[in-house]
């Protein structure tokens, strides 16, 4: 059981590493959200499940799994809320050739 717990924890750290690198290196706000929104959730889930496996079956493990379930529901919701707020605040998406793309939302061109 200890080997499985170490495996889960290392996988979680790997996903945290990917989220951090993407958060630092990506060019604009939306791609940074793409990196952190998913990798951070999965890293937290894997780390917490690894800790619950290490602890064995008890009330504390049930609480840790409860925190994992809450993170699984709440973290994508928070990501979606920030993304919607940024899109409504006219944060422009990055494109490779510098064109301005805005689909959806309000059209302000005319």
């Amino acid at each position: 059981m200890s080997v499985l717990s170490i495996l889960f924890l290392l996988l979680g750290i790997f996903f945290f590493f990917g989220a951090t690198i993407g958060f630092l290196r990506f060019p604009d706000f939306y791609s940074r959200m793409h990196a952190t929104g998913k990798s951070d959730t999965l890293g937290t889930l894997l780390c917490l499940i690894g800790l619950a496996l290490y602890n064995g079956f008890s009330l504390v493990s049930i609480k840790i799994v409860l925190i994992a379930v809450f993170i699984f529901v709440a973290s994508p919701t928070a990501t979606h809320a920030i993304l919607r707020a940024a899109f409504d605040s006219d944060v422009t998406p990055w494109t490779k050739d510098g064109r301005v793309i805005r689909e959806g939302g309000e059209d302000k061109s005319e």
Partner: protein
Amino acid sequence: MEDFFLALSLILGFFVLLCLYRVVRGPGVFNRIVGVNVIGTKTLVILALMGFLYKRVDMFVDICLVYALLNFISTLAAAKYFQRKGAD
């Protein structure tokens, strides 16, 4: 096993420092909100690891739960508060 947990906590602290760069320098307010959210998520895992290091998991798990709730609520509140035209 405790050395392993300590090493994981140190690595996560290093990641928090890397994310702090985006909070300090990041263009616009939304990058900062996302940076604070990411740092809060990492702090949650560090707190759980600290519970195993200090052998007080039953206490630290409750702190983790409260921290997760506060992180979620504060992110939603900040996203609502800064939502206006041309905020970036």
